[in-house]
């Protein structure tokens, strides 16, 4: 590998630092901050950048996450791009303003380095903390490595600030395993990012700075009566923004990113060698990186296995799931949360489709429990066994096993 000298723009940084780099490149003006491990490194890195004069922004640190999200909403309504990084308990603390942001159509971005819900007081990783917001009309990205965190953040700003979307977004990644893991990351040049990501402009109706307040308050008095009749229409618009326009904008943002920077992450989901796959591993987040290796290894042995990475939990990539599993006989769903959400979602997406595959839900790697390529291989073998016998039993199970001393990985 030594023959290719690393490009000067490649930095070895952690997931949190990659998130901070992305915020810097997006020229955020407001940095919301409330410390909670493993997320706080994002805010700390941004403050260091400000000290070095690389970023012109203001830090808002308030008494809790709820206040910070409220401040972020207000800043965004004033036409300023902002960022905030929190997780588990912090997100739940901000429960109310999170919903408020979605239904007021305020495009805020929150980075989440996944962390388990309490009790016990653990700081280990678990997707549970954002998937409980699956019904809040937030866009949710799951990233597998620091490079994807950086790229996705830039894409996310582009998507949410589109006037036909205007929804908040979670950019999430595994706590510790991505947030504190050092990887080589290609940091794009500022002028390329400026070309890709236009400055933040609110539509005139939502721009609180350009707004005529006398007219606004007059309108609102009337509107608060009027919305009683239009509540359903409002919710319909939000749902269309997420599941209609949002879907296409996410794919377009990724394609445009590929055009400008030369790499993409597959829009709503990535299909990896699924064309003729008999068994497909369905993953989210950094489990996908390991699954991709395992697919390569098993393919080299002539076993038809593929991988589908669900990149956005919301909007859910229904079409991608269907096309990835069209030829498959078994889908093995690797859930990194205690409620088997992927299992529910994928099965719902497949319902009523012709030639449905067997679906095996497997809860794996909660709290940073080791997941080795040996484990992944065995999960795939379980899929082949189910394909052979035609029985997918048990439907959902928890995988406690870890590779032992002497096991070959």
């Amino acid at each position, binding site marked *: 590998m030594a023959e290719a000298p690393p490009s000067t723009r490649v930095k*070895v940084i952690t997931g949190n630092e990659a998130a901070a780099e992305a915020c810097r490149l997006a020229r955020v003006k407001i940095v919301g901050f409330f410390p909670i491990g493993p997320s706080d490194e994002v805010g700390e890195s941004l403050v260091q950048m400000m000290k070095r004069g690389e970023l012109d922004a203001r830090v808002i640190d308030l008494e809790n996450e709820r206040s910070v999200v409220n401040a972020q909403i207000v800043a965004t309504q004033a036409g300023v791009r902002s960022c905030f990084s929190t997780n588990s308990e912090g997100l739940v603390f901000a429960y109310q303003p999170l919903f408020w942001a979605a239904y007021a159509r305020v495009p805020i971005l929150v980075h989440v380095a996944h962390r388990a819900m309490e009790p016990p007081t653990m700081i280990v990783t678990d997707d549970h903390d954002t998937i409980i917001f699956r019904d809040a009309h937030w866009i949710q990205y799951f990233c597998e490595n620091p490079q994807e965190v950086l790229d996705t953040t830039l894409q996310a700003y582009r998507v949410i600030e589109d006037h036909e979307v205007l929804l908040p977004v979670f950019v999430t990644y595994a706590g*510790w395993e991505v947030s504190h893991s050092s990887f080589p990351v290609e940091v794009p040049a500022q002028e390329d990012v400026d070309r890709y990501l236009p400055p933040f402009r609110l539509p005139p109706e939502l721009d609180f700075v350009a707004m005529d307040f006398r007219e606004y308050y007059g309108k609102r008095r009337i509107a608060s009566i009027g919305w009683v009749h239009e509540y359903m229409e409002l919710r319909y618009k939000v749902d269309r923004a997420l599941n209609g326009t949002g879907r296409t904008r996410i794919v377009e943002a990724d394609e445009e990113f590929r055009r400008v920077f030369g790499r993409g992450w597959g829009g709503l989901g990535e299909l990896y060698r699924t064309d003729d796959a008999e068994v497909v591993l369905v993953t989210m987040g*950094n489990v996908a990186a390991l699954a991709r290796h395992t697919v390569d290894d098993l393919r080299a042995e002539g076993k038809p296995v593929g991988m589908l990475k669900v990149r956005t939990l919301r909007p859910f990539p229904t079409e991608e799931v269907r096309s990835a599993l069209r030829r498959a006989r078994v889908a093995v769903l690797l859930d990194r949360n205690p409620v088997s959400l992927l299992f529910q979602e994928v099965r719902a997406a497949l319902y009523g489709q012709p030639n449905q595959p067997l679906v095996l839900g497997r809860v794996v790697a909660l709290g940073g429990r080791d997941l*080795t390529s040996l484990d992944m291989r065995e999960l795939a073998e379980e899929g082949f066994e189910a394909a052979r016998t035609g029985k997918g039993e048990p439907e959902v199970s928890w995988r406690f096993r870890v590779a032992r001393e002497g096991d070959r*990985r």
Partner: protein
Amino acid sequence: MIGGTKEVTLACMSGQGSVQTMELLAKAYYEQHGMYVGSLVFPGSRSKSTPVVSYLKVSSRPVAAISANYEPSEVVVFWDGLLRVVEKAAHPVVTEAISRLRRGLLLVNSASAPADLLPLPWNFEGTLATVDASEIARRHLGRNPPPVGVTLLGASLAITRALELERVLRLVRERFPGTVGEANVAAAQEASERVQVLQGVVSARGQVHIPLAPKAPEALPEWYPLDKETMPGFRQGSPYIWRDEVPICEDTKCLCKHTCLSEAMCPDNTGFIVRAGIEGARQGYRIDVDYCRGCRICVEVCVYSALQMVPEKEAIARGYEGITVEPYLGKQPSRRA
């Protein structure tokens, strides 16, 4: 090495700096060898003074850093107490992380010579090295407990020569600009000269067997009590306590009656009682140091500055009861008096 992957494991107590060290190592390996790097952190708990294990993988193909290191060629132990944890299998993750080293380099932060650490409690062949990094780092950095990561890095590179020391020190200066970086660089250079190396160590104590492999679902206990008395890391006399200093109280200065702000602010609920001025209580104070992690928050909030941190050994010499230096291993949890 597995499939052309070089694996390095760092085991420390939180606050000793293995995560920052891992980041520096990853940067240096990428810069010098241009290979794919990936690192993984196994965090302890939210509190201070719990074990943290960091894994680095250097490979010719993109790294999926989601699992521990299974065949490390180098293990750096940031505190020699962790070797006793291995011996007693007191912490599954730490025990496995260290005892998976079959051959290669084991570097221990310890005041003793390498030969004094033998025999090691697991099968191991290779090089054993020690350096008193805590002492060096404390002297250069003036912090207690001292972060010893960069110091140990200097010692490790002096032995393996896997990376150019100068390159790593430049990264240290970039990461910690100013005096902190310079102090770390000086500490690393001193450690690289003072490291004691013992080659050709063969230790055959058998395999440490840890029940990290989980139980079958039906064998799991009916419920897990989420009680401070029984939770790992909070257990009385926990093996995970790592500290150099404990708070002591000068009774003559202590003037608050009945309410102690320090006690209320203690993040670990050590529940210490300042008895001066309370009628009927015996003189002196008692801090339940089994729980104390030496975070010195109590000292900072003490209204009359009656509390101060003193080295634990000195506190024992002065006859304060309830203080032990040896990490606690294996005793069953008991209710406090």
